[in-house]
């Protein structure tokens, strides 16, 4: 409110422009085709892959299979949402995979004390790890990849410590209040899928239409300039990393409830899928540009491809990693090409 008032008064009678036409026109106007590819390229590819799969693979378009894809994509999508925030700030979070695994073990262990504990403990722990990442990156000014690589190892160590060096698998007791909330469906759609829709809607509004979101873009676009423009750089980064940790924790906890146990192997490599999904969705790894809807499309695309790979006999699931890695490179190359073109236009 205060700010809008300031604008009103501040501009009453501007400084008086030059009499003639504008001295500064926009030099360039084009680049909209590149912009379109950047924004919607992933969606177009997703549609094409879906169409191709529907035509060639029997039973692909069955409700069961689609729901399978959607639920399978739900937990990675939650991680990708947090990753989007981090990447738009110009950073990267490599710790989410093991944080996800840690959350699963913590949730399964804490589930003996009830639903609340099963959610609260992992969320708190993971948010704390995320905050630690944020503080080390924003305040101590360490490189994001090395900090999060280190906490990736740290979270893995914690997880081993909690699970008796990985030998103990905690089981979520039957009849836990939260279990049906995760495993049931609403109008045929799994609750996790609904949760993803809600989270992405909130995330999208937060990034697009709040002051925090503007700060995230500004920090990623040019950190020094953002600081000079009064953006709370450190706070913005810390919140982004904390949210990333928190969301990875949420995904891990829900995954444990979904599976009924805290499996210690799960989660390794998820950070790479999340990063791929975000980048495929059109977010620039350099930061300052991106949107959550793209990340959702990216996750879906990767999961559809995985579903197809699984559907084709004789291909090991490791093949998915090859596809994922190649995809990441192709998208990054395309982005580089597009942004270079845009500069030239």
């Amino acid at each position, binding site marked *: 409110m205060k700010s809008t008032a300031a604008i009103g008064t501040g501009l009453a009678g501007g400084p008086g422009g030059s009499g003639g036409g504008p001295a500064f026109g926009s030099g360039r106007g084009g*680049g909209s085709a590149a912009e379109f590819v950047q924004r919607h390229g992933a969606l177009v590819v997703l549609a094409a892959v879906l169409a191709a799969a529907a035509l060639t693979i029997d039973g692909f378009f069955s409700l069961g299979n689609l729901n399978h894809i959607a639920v399978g994509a739900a937990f990675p999508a939650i991680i990708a949402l947090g990753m989007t925030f981090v990447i738009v700030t110009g950073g990267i979070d490599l710790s989410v995979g093991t944080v996800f695994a840690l959350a699963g073990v913590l949730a399964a262990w804490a589930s003996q004390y009830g639903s609340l504990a099963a959610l609260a403990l992992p969320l708190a722990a993971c948010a704390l790890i995320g905050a630690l990442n944020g503080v080390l990156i924003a305040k101590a000014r360490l490189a994001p990849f090395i900090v999060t690589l280190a906490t990736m190892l740290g979270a893995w160590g914690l997880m081993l410590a909690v699970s008796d060096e990985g030998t103990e698998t905690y089981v979520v007791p039957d009849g836990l209040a939260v279990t049906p909330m995760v495993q049931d469906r609403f109008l045929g759609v799994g609750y996790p899928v609904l949760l993803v829709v809600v989270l992405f809607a909130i995330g999208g509004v937060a990034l697009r239409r709040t002051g925090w979101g*503007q700060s995230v873009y500004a920090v990623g676009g040019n950190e020094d300039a953002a600081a000079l423009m009064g953006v709370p750089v450190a706070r913005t980064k810390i919140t982004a990393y904390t949210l990333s940790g928190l969301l990875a924790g949420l995904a891990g906890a829900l995954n444990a409830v979904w599976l009924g146990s805290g499996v210690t192997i799960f989660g390794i490599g998820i950070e790479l899928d999340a990063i791929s999904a975000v980048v495929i969705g059109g977010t620039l790894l350099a930061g300052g540009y991106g949107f959550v809807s793209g990340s959702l499309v990216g996750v879906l695309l990767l999961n559809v491809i995985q579903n197809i790979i699984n559907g084709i006999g004789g291909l090991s699931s490791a093949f998915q990693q090859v596809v994922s890695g190649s995809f990441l490179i192709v998208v990054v190359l395309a982005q580089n090409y597009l942004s270079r073109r845009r500069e030239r236009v």
Partner: protein
Amino acid sequence: MTATAEQGGAGAAGPALRTRGLTKRFPGVLALDDVDFDLSHGEVHALVGENGAGKSTLIKVLSGVFAPDGGEVRYLGEAARFDTPLRAQQAGISTIYQEVNLIPLLSVARNLFLGREPRRFGLIDFARMHREAAGILRDYGVEVDVTGPLQGLSMGARQMVALARAVVADARVVIMDEPTSSLEPREVETLFTVIGGLRERGITVVYVSHRLDELYRICDRVTVLRDGRVVHTGALAGLERLRLISLMLGREAEQVERQGATTFGGPHERRAEEPVLVAEELDDRQRLHGVSLSIRPGEVLGLGGLLGSGRTETARAIAGAAALRSGRITVAGVPLRRRSTGAAIAAGISMLPEDRKSEGIIPDLSVRENIALAAMPRLSRFGLVSERRIDRVVDVFVERLRIKSAGTRQKVAELSGGNQQKVLLARWLALNPRVLLLDEPTRGIDVGAKAEVQRLVDELAAEGLGVLLISSDLEELIEGADRVVVLKDGSVVGELSGDDVREGALMRAIADADADAAADPGCTTPGGPAAEGAGRPGGPQEHDGGAGPADPRAGASAGEGTPGRRGAR
């Protein structure tokens, strides 16, 4: 904020900002020494001084980047201490830096309103933001699509957005650091109009610039810093130009006059008529449209023109550092086949780049390694480096260029700007080139080093090198070059040689469509009608008011609407 709102209007009494005994120390340097600095409401205050005088430190202390080690700042009558740039801005002190203060990927409107976006139901109201942004920017002469990314705008337009942003943020004091360094003349006029508007609204402007003509046009008062101290403060109108220069340099006025601004000798003797470098029809589709030039051994060819006219691009293209669509480059009769920096160097072309920091020195390496960098392949055999040969070459150039360091193993980052520049010159001379391209060789270095570099250019030409000299400093260009090729919009628009190489003639050659803006500054040498048109084959038509259809932006010239205040002279 509430307090500042009432202070509005030019008539407010008392100083807007005042410092007493401001001191700032860096390891080994006293950057600010007991500085008293006063700013009144609604004045345009020039802040001048040579490099290292403490201007930027003072700006940074005022804008909250540095905390002072001693002294006090009183702002609007109250003691103030700004820990961060944000605090300073919130209090109403905004600084417009040359480049880095906006975010290229964000939209123009978002840049303008970042941190104070209009809200509706707690969320940002984009429709209103875009509407208001367009309205505000129109007053600053910027008419663009405000929803597009800022990176689509010219540097000048970006600076206007930054200025508009400061005013939107209710600034009472706006500090502008070299605002015109990347502006075209027409944009400068708009900027001055806008500054005039700010003054009328009681906003104080601190104007930092090296361009004296601009200072005299728009500034009311001046403060001169030297070695961290205030050596003069007062009204600008009564201050003689020569006196101002001598205050900045710390030399006596007569001395400045006697020595002139440069140390170049007379014209150079050309040894051969066969050119050592011929560049024909250089075209890169964007900035260069068929530039041709040639340099003979022992000749210094000046490259004139305004910023963005294609001077740097020409040098880069010749040195193989920029892509070309077409064009031919011949060195001593042998055409260059491959287009790369390596091929150019092998052919005997050396280029001293414009930006010493980002393209020249390798800060963490020693003086020795920096000098030997380009010549390293020649100082090694079978890929093995010979330390002995490096030492020999390095010693020769350290002595010849009088590079002052604590030994050749000292990190080059620890040297002064002038010595760094000499290290870079040594790097290129160590290659024993036939052609030396110098892009702004004396920008941002101290007076002493500048004189030495200029003397060196003379010496090198005398030794038979072909030199291409690019300089925004007209005096340097005129006194240093035997011949000047003038560029505009990537084409050669004129050439001056012999006695025509004079300021008036050069200025007239540069200024075609933008005559009123470009011809005005520093027209100290009366050009004389004889000079006009003499050395300009194919030069532009007479300049009777913005008839430049070739330039898409020229059509929208601010033109006559800006009378400009030139009273202070």
